[in-house]
């Protein structure tokens, strides 16, 4: 289907060097999630197993395998097959329909609901694939665990509008959910940080829309960032790196995110934040991942458009180090495979250090 050939072997040190602000042998590629159909197109066979998944990440040029863990999307886990917990069933039971949480599908509206909620155990949050993957990992590759959400899981358990109203009407309920989710996630992180296969944690938790924060920064400073600081410290003490992902405009939180100690920021949506300005504001404190625009060129542009944008980003950001190329969100199934391939190939062709682009 495609002629993508990575030019080098997987090397987690390449990834680590860039995450820690340096210049490796070439600009790494990094993605938090790639749709299984796209993975299959790249690999040339369906993704039916963990081994297939690992083979995809290796073939596509990555130095890590990204696997899910922790509480992710409780509002999407309404069916018996998709209970709240880690998404470790995605190879043979992955949903084909698009899903999203709704304002009225919150599962917790009261303290009674909170008490009755079937909270997962820590074992549920550390899926077997995080250890099973060891047998498939090629030399040089590590796992990045896409860890569960705290802010997002809290509001999804209530529905966003109910959550927003509860901040004023039932702050004790909001606090109870935040606390319960945080304690579960922290317990899961402790276990994950002990795993040899894990090279880092990728904290995915959207706190902003295109124009700014979803809720008052006061809320996040009270409930979220202290938890992140604790978890990032746990990761660092275990020798793992910590990446933070949030969509949207994060200017109001940049100092908080840096103070948490994260090593890198992802995905830097072009519509929300200019990546060059982000680099200026975070110089030396956060490496940057992503920013290749999911809308245009990745979805609506041509492979040439994609290559042009990758070239511009590498020229602007890579020479100083601390930049990893990826989409401005993830690679959903609507991104044409040839555009995804064009992004990866452009990095292979243009991202070799020393960077020779002007």
């Amino acid at each position: 289907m495609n002629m993508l050939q990575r030019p080098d072997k997987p090397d987690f040190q390449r990834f680590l060097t860039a995450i820690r602000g340096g210049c490796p042998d070439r600009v790494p590629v990094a993605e938090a999630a790639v749709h299984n159909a796209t993975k299959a197109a790249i690999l040339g066979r369906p993704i039916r197993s963990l081994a297939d998944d690992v083979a995809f990440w290796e073939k596509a040029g990555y130095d890590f395998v990204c696997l899910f863990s922790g509480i992710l999307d409780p509002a999407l886990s309404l069916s018996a097959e998709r209970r709240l917990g880690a998404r470790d069933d995605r190879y043979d039971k992955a949903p084909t329909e698009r899903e999203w949480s709704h304002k009225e599908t919150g599962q917790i509206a009261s303290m009674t609901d909170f008490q009755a909620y079937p909270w997962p155990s820590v074992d549920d949050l550390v899926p077997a694939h995080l250890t099973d993957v060891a047998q498939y990992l090629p030399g040089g590759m590590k796992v990045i665990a896409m860890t569960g959400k705290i802010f997002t899981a809290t509001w999804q358990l209530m529905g966003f509008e109910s959550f927003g109203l509860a901040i004023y009407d039932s702050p004790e309920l909001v606090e109870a959910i935040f606390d319960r989710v945080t304690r579960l996630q922290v317990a899961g992180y402790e276990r994950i940080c002990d795993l040899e296969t894990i090279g880092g944690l990728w904290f995915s938790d959207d706190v902003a829309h295109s124009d700014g924060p979803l809720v008052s920064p006061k809320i996040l400073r009270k409930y979220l960032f202290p938890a992140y600081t604790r978890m990032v410290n746990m990761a660092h003490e275990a020798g793992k790196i910590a990446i933070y992902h949030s969509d949207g405009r994060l200017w109001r939180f940049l100092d908080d995110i840096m103070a948490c100690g994260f090593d890198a920021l992802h995905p830097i949506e072009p519509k929300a934040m200019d990546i060059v300005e982000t680099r200026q504001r975070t110089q030396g404190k956060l490496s940057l991942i992503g920013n290749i625009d999911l809308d245009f060129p990745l979805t609506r542009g041509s492979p040439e458009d994609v290559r042009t944008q990758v070239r511009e980003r590498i020229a602007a950001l890579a020479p100083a180090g601390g930049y990893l190329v990826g989409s401005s969100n993830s690679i959903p199934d609507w991104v044409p495979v040839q555009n995804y391939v064009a992004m990866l190939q452009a990095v292979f062709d243009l991202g070799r250090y020393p960077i020779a682009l002007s």
Partner: protein
Amino acid sequence: MTDTLTQLAHRLYDGDAQAVAQLTHAALSEGLTPEDVLNRGLVLGMQRVGVDFRAGELFIPEVLIAARAMHAGMAVLRPQLASSGVPLAGKVVLGTVKDDLHDIGKNLVGMMLEGAGFEVIDLGIDTPPQRFVEAVRRERPALVAISALLTTTMQGIVDTIEALTQAGMRDKVQIMVGGAPVTQAFASQIGADGYASDAASAADLARSLIESRRVMPGRAV
């Protein structure tokens, strides 16, 4: 402005639904017209919410509690408005396009439009073009507001505009579009009449589109 209307706008800004309902009653009891209570009390309070939301002083939860207070005031005021024949700012048909299940942003737009005095017909999420066409035929709105949150569903906006054109309704309504991947450039490219980047801007845009219709020959509001 009377003390009661000033208080009404303030309490709405604070999201105090109970006080807003009481003050709406009080304002009517003082002999103020329903139109004044609406425009100089409720709408004024919601406009201030919109201004501060856009300025980053307020956030979505504050918009939600203000919108709830607006509803409480409108529950008192609506019968009076109906019986006195006060015209609303206009009618808007609102929806998220087919295959797109996101409703938070759309709902916020609906709240801000209602807060600006519009009647909002919310078609919900995953709305096929034909459902927009049927709603326009049935409701005869001045505006159609179309939302898409995913790059892949942006085409749904184009399809909806095309369906309205095919049904002979395109020149009977003005179309405003929005959603995370949508831009002014995209809106212009597909022939929408306006683009808003956030809910408060959507209310401003709706007002300006209505105003432009008032001075546009051949387009009655």
